[in-house]
């Protein structure tokens, strides 16, 4: 079990999970440092979404422990969840409601007072460049715009940890780059902690703390550059291939 450093935003220890008798995650041990952009890298089916579902308590942990800024998710789910914002892989906006209404619903679910909610909604929609479109129905937005709205929503209650599960999947190159830059900017400017799950190696920068997940097991974690040099690979692509082929 990894020691939980005071600076860790999220720690997962001894976490295993089975669905229908099949082991999806096995003895997961991770530590996500506070105030950093950490990448959870893994192919489709590696177990990233299951891990996110456990961390957000959509699934109950069958074993192990999850702590968010020291709060045990099992013992204090409300406190732990209040510290998190989540962007799910599958779109999770109500298509029949407007952007503002979707955000307002989220604010209510977090118990935010009306005045605070209105001001936060305006600020976040402004930040993602959709303030003028606030009253448009969700179904009329493009995929990239919907993602921006989801990020705005995830940040509405001012979480300290933002979880993004394949947030750029299905988007065009420009939208992908814009969203990635936006989220990296949040880490730089607000000191937000981000756990960014992706299967796209080009989204990882050399200095990013990186966790490589493959077939439900953590193969390596550390700064991307250190993983590359430890393995003597010519890049993260090569390092990833070496690790997954050996597993």
């Amino acid at each position, binding site marked *: 079990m990894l020691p939980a450093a005071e600076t860790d*935003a999220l720690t997962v220890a001894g976490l295993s999970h089975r*669905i*229908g008798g099949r082991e999806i995650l096995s003895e997961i041990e991770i530590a996500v440092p*506070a*105030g*950093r952009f950490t990448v959870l890298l893994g192919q489709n089916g590696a177990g990233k*979404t*299951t891990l996110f*579902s456990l961390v*957000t*308590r*959509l*699934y*109950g*942990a069958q074993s192990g422990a999850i702590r968010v*800024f020291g*709060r045990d998710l099992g013992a204090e*789910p*409300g*406190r732990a*969840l*209040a*510290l*998190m914002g*989540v962007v*799910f*892989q*599958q*779109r*999770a*906006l*109500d*298509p*029949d*409601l407007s952007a503002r*209404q979707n955000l*307002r*619903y*989220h*604010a*209510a*679910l*977090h*118990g*935010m*007072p*009306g005045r605070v909610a209105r001001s936060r909604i305006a600020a976040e929609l402004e930040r993602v460049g959709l303030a003028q479109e606030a009253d448009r129905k969700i179904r009329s937005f493009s995929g990239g715009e919907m993602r921006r709205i989801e990020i705005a*929503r995830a940040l509405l*209650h*001012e*979480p*300290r940890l933002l979880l993004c599960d394949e947030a750029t999947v299905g988007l065009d190159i420009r939208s992908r780059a814009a969203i990635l830059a936006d989220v990296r900017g949040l880490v730089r400017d*607000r*000191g*937000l*902690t981000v756990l960014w799950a992706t299967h796209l190696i080009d989204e990882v920068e050399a200095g990013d703390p990186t966790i490589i997940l493959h077939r439900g097991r953590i193969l390596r974690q550390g700064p991307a550059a250190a993983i590359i040099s430890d393995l003597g690979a010519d890049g993260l692509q090569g390092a990833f291939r070496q690790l997954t082929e050996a597993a």
Partner: protein
Amino acid sequence: MSAAPESALGTITLAGAWRCLLGILWREALRFVHQRTRFISALVRPLVWLFIFAAGFRSVLGVSIIPPYETYILYDEYIVPGLIAMIQLFNGMQSSLSMVYDREMGSMRVLLTSPMPRWYLLTARLLAGTLLSLPQVYVFLLIARFWGIEPPPLGYVTVLPALVLSGLMLGALGLLLSSAIRQLENFAGVMNFVIFPMFFASSALYPLWKVEEASPLLRDVCGFNPFTYAVELVRFMLYGQIDTQSLLLVIGFAVVFLGGAILAYDPARGLIARVRGPGGGG
């Protein structure tokens, strides 16, 4: 690097829980308003039964004096409480459908990752669905009044607690079912195996003594059917009386169904976590 200050909402306050409840009510009301056809079909269904089925039976089937009625009544007067409960039954199942839809669309994840306790979120959702059934019932009662079905004026008030209780019971059943329904397509099964049997094998269409005359076995089936007690509770309270047995059973069934739904949606113990995950992914 400085992290943002810890959210003040880390501790769930009563005010926060209240705002959460209002938010869920508001969202369900908004969706209801957007689905105008849902309101219309909720009304058309019982009205067809009242205007066509009951009108046809009126001449051949009178109902003798049975509580809570103080005199002989026409069949269409007898059938009205059953049709009210039918509105609530369909509304409860509509809530179930809405939960499944939310799961497929991903919106359920937003609800379930709220810091509020899950039992509270589900109860708030149930309450929202129940409250939405009330205007449908009162509009139906208004139309029925023009048709000559005139319960005592005070009955419109005394029936309200019965409507809330029966709405909660049937909504909780819908909530429980929604945990077991994996896809929207499976909802046809709910129609065939839940709604129709519950409605027909109850006291909604015929008094239980008449059912017993036809088949004692069917009478026993009706006696085990929670819907029967929702109908009887509404029937008695529409006439300003309380049927204690129905009242206790409706409350009991509501608690059992809601308890089952909370258990099914519990991330650690729930059925859905084992099968597919409450958000619909995996």
